[in-house]
């Protein structure tokens, strides 16, 4: 089935009210910037961004059951490739998306191949993903062409150029919003496809999936490739938003952990979970950072991470499957539907 037909199918299948509500929310978000100041725009950017990477990570863990704790790797690869090609060769990030996605997907495929071919599973696979991110961090730390540990910078330009991701917070607001919407639609389509169902089967019971004709290795490889490719796109955007890249931050495991909190808190394996999780966590985390800065008179790094840990504990206690499944029950949406 071609994607367009599936898309119209998706729309036809969803309850009218839900579609209306979704459309309304996107519309509100689309006009919101007129009322938002610089600071709030940046908070929303982070919400959309974390929702996007959460969605990407959720493909691997939530759909296919493969735990990656090294997704910062793909953010970093995407970011560095986009920044390098722009600064050193003047290639637009719009074009750099392609090599960024390809390289990240190649790294994902290499990790996946090593893990899945040799039966490295669960926690050990997660360790493998951490190891790759760490090794890459060390590599970039010592690679002088990209600035090494001192970092790599994208010059701020006075002329806005949306296609080159040069512009103010409003531009990044819309880019991230578009990214989040596209990631959602892609995941919704995948979730309904044969591949999506193969992922679910592998997550639930790989042995049983195999007995039903599913090539488990291929399904897992597809998950890691799609997930890393999507993450790399978000990585390019993040690099141009920040205008700087430091290996010690970009590839840090703390970043990897931060990326996976939204889908866990929102609801693993659900379509709305990563978005809901990002809308809950990011604003609260940012508020806390601002609050601590006011009270202590200076920023205390990592204070939002402590908060995330506490939030995670509360959620696991009250809604172990995440906020979205809990909310769904409260709203009376039947199980097995989004």
């Amino acid at each position, binding site marked *: 089935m071609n994607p367009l037909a599936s898309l119209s199918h998706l729309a036809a299948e969803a309850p009218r009210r839900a579609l209306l509500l979704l459309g309304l929310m996107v519309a509100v978000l689309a006009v919101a910037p007129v009322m938002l100041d610089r600071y709030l725009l940046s908070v929303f950017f982070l919400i959309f961004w974390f929702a996007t990477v959460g969605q990407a990570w959720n493909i691997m863990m939530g759909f296919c059951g493969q735990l990656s704790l090294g997704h910062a790797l793909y953010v970093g690869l995407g970011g560095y490739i986009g920044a390098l090609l722009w600064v050193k060769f003047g290639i637009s990030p719009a074009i750099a998306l392609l090599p960024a996605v390809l390289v990240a997907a190649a790294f994902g495929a290499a990790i996946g191949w090593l893990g899945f071919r040799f039966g490295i599973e669960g926690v050990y696979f997660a360790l493998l993903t951490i190891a790759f991110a760490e090794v890459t961090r060390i590599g970039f730390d010592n690679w002088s062409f990209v600035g090494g540990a001192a970092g790599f910078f994208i010059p701020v330009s006075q002329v806005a150029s949306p296609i080159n991701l040069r512009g103010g917070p409003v531009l990044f607001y819309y880019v991230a919003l578009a990214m989040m919407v596209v990631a959602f639609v892609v995941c919704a389509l995948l979730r309904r496809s044969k591949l999506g169902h193969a992922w679910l089967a592998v997550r639930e*019971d790989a042995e049983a999936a*195999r007995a039903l004709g599913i090539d488990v290795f291929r399904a897992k490889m597809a998950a890691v490739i799609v997930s890393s490719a999507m993450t790399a796109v978000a990585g390019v955007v993040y690099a141009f938003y920040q205008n700087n890249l430091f290996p010690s931050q970009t590839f840090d495991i703390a970043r990897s952990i931060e990326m996976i909190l939204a889908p866990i808190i929102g609801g693993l*394996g659900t379509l709305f979970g990563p978005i809901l999780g990002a809308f809950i966590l990011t604003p609260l985390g940012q508020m806390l950072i601002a609050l601590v800065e006011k009270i202590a008179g200076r920023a205390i790094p990592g204070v939002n991470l402590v908060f995330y840990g506490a939030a995670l504990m509360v959620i696991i206690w009250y809604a172990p499957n995440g906020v979205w499944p809990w909310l769904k029950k409260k709203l009376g949406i039947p199980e097995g539907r989004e």
Partner: protein
Amino acid sequence: MSVLLDVRGVTKRFRGLTAVDNVSLTVEEGEIFAVIGPNGAGKTTLFNMIAGVMKPDTGSITFAGERADGIAPHELCRRGLARTFQIVRPFPELTVLENATIGAMMRAPDMEAARAHAGEVLRQLDLWERRDAKAKSLTLPDRKRLECARALATGPRLLLLDEVMAGLRPTEVDRIVAILREINRSGVTILLIEHVMRATMALAGRIHVLHHGATIAEGTPEEVTRHPKVLESYLGAEAL
């Protein structure tokens, strides 16, 4: 009738123990064939070799005219050999319909068709009413039938059933026997591995008896039950 499954001189050893010792059997297209034997007779090992989970040490397995030993389970499934698990393995967090749909996916052109086919199979196995329930919420008899439904949804030529009747009450056994007969009548060959004698006798056209990994008898239910070695292994020598 033509031979669908041909197991020839298959042996499997685990360290010192010979779990399956030079077993040969052939399953004809369209029949219901049963492998029985007491606990530890090697039934499950034999089953696992046919299903592609293990490779025999010696001997060969041919399915539909093609060499099948050492072929991955998902590939065998594509060739038309579907199996169930003795300890049922539903996809617990997915609904009954999703479980069956995943089985139907392989041969369906798209998800729409897969879901439609899965629905038919669920009706055949009396599970249609439970289609929206999560698999983990099913009772054991329902889970056993879901296990069959999922395998059947793959559109197999040969259905391998690993003790689908174990642990069921007699009324449930009768229900599944009736369903399996119906499935067989629709053209699916069935190979049962069973422990429950009564149902096997009622269902199978031919029975193959294993004991300590080796064949001790093969024939119609009447022939097998009268075979002195079978009586000895099942009831003990005193019964003779």
